[in-house]
């Protein structure tokens, strides 16, 4: 065994190293936030928020059509993803005694870690091949990304409701399903809403599946069987373009997206602080 002094020095050294590692991991976060705010703020103005994407070489323009498109795609996706996720979450939490539930939980976790681009290709083969690149295909892919997140957070929120509440309702003669729907569910409302919000924020930032199922679209919404513009995808297209105007738009879009997503995370964290 090394001498006491050496052990002491090693201990000090490791303590510093651990904190340094933490600092190093946070530098990218602050750098990203700083850059996005600094470069994004200068490109945000009235035009940016109200005009559609400019053509190449055209000055000005904005991302209003992309905000419309992102809202639409996320909204459609939640129509599919929320009910499935909610019911799966209820199943996992309230009927955890069934043989089916470990398998459901396992495959939900597996799907949660899946590359989003593979899910995008799935949307392509199943929808784009029959009706073409469209907002429906993108919403389908985004819904699949959403399902495991909503399922997991719903399950966790429901499990936080004490068993005594369920027992009390059942003791009053309320059927089990009514207990779940009206008593347990309302007790977990906040947690469930949190999960849905977080999943919406997550899919609003997804660009790989959108690229594969919808492609780049420069115009306003033109029908459910047509693509729509998308904020996250716009950032990719604009960032790799050589035009300065487009690059400025990319930073502006990034600011909008980051505000939306991190804002959601922060608000959710503040409202659910007592739970974590």
């Amino acid at each position, binding site marked *: 065994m090394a001498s006491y002094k050496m052990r002491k020095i090693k201990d000090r050294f490791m303590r510093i190293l651990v904190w340094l590692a*933490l600092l190093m991991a946070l530098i990218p976060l602050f750098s990203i936030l700083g850059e996005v705010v600094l470069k994004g703020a200068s490109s945000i103005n009235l035009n940016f928020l109200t005009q559609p994407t400019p053509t190449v070489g055209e000055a000005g323009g904005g991302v209003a059509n992309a905000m419309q498109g992102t809202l639409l795609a996320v909204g459609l996706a939640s129509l599919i993803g929320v009910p499935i996720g909610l019911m799966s979450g209820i199943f996992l939490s309230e*009927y955890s005694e069934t043989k089916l539930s470990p398998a459901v939980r396992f495959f939900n976790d597996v799907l949660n870690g899946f590359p989003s681009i593979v899910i995008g290709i799935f949307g392509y083969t199943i929808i784009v091949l029959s009706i073409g690149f469209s907002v429906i295909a993108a919403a389908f892919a985004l819904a699949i990304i959403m399902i495991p997140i909503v399922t997991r957070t719903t399950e966790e929120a429901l499990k936080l409701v004490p068993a005594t509440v369920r027992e009390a309702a059942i003791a009053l003669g309320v059927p089990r399903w009514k207990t779940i729907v009206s008593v347990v569910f309302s007790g977990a409302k906040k947690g469930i809403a949190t999960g849905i919000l977080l999943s919406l924020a997550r899919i609003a930032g997804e660009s790989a599946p959108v690229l594969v199922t919808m492609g780049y679209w420069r115009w306003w919404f033109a029908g459910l069987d047509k693509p729509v513009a998308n904020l996250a995808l716009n950032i990719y297209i604009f960032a790799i373009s050589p035009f300065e105007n487009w690059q400025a738009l990319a930073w502006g879009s990034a600011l909008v997206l980051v505000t939306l997503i991190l804002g959601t995370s922060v608000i959710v964290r503040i409202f659910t602080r007592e739970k974590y």
Partner: protein
Amino acid sequence: MKSSRKPPVFIHNLNVKVHKIFKKPLTGDYAFKLLAATFASIIFLILGLMIYELIKGSQLSLQRFGIEFLIGTKWDPAISQVFGVLPLILGTLVTSAIALLIGVPISLCIGLALSEYAPKRFGFAISFLVELLAAVPSVIYGLWGIFTLIPFLRNNVYAYLQGILGFIPLFSGPIYGGGVLTGGIILAIMIIPTVSAVSRDVFSAVPNTQREAMISLGATKWETAKNVISYARSGVIGAIILGLGRAVGETMAITMVIGNKFQLLPSSLFDAWYTMSAIIANEFTEATYGLYVSALIEVGLVLFFVALIINVLARLVVWRSLKLVRGIARE
């Protein structure tokens, strides 16, 4: 108490049918349970359909190339229409390996800092910041990579690195800024939240008696922490595999910084390369004929199986070792 009204005929018939199939009457309870189970089972349908559709979509390329697809080193959609993905697989593996090499030690330190070193309140705040890092969309990492990380690395780090280690072929050659190492670094940043969150959870799950025993024997903080790591080692392995899963499937950020050049091996760590996910993102919307699209879908199929194996393995390892169900989902 019996209700005097009879239920409508169709409900009665439905009830009889359900009774025949499931040998239970269709009460509200049973119907609701059935409904929930049906919705929950959609997950199996999704995964099954995904395998089926990906295989169906890559039929053309599967028939044309067979195993050649996996070991082929040529990707020529323009002239000879030959597709082989070995360089892409290598690109994915190497960039992910670099990401793990850089990201895992940092993440383990963060896990330790949060579970062993930080005071509770402060730890919550830091955990939240690390989780924010996971919430930033991939495409914004890419944007930041192009305009901030690449210039920084090119001007301040790479030239310096080459000055010291230039005699090793890995660190020689021209510096573009984007490339294999940059790709690995950006992936490392992106896996840190995942790996550190899971390792924080497995470290926190180590029973306090372990720490108390170490301290009572006169161990220093670091020696105690080392013991915590080794107690939780299978959970740590699970965390690393989860990080690997995220690195392998990561698309937008890596596409934007790796340079997208199809070659078997890059000349150095500073050279451009390609990964499986990057080629799909880069070429999918430009694929003009059936075989080309089919080949890209087959790349997706390969990625599907790689991700499936990695994810199943990770969940099994983490679950088995510490039955830590909660922490894993919060990525």
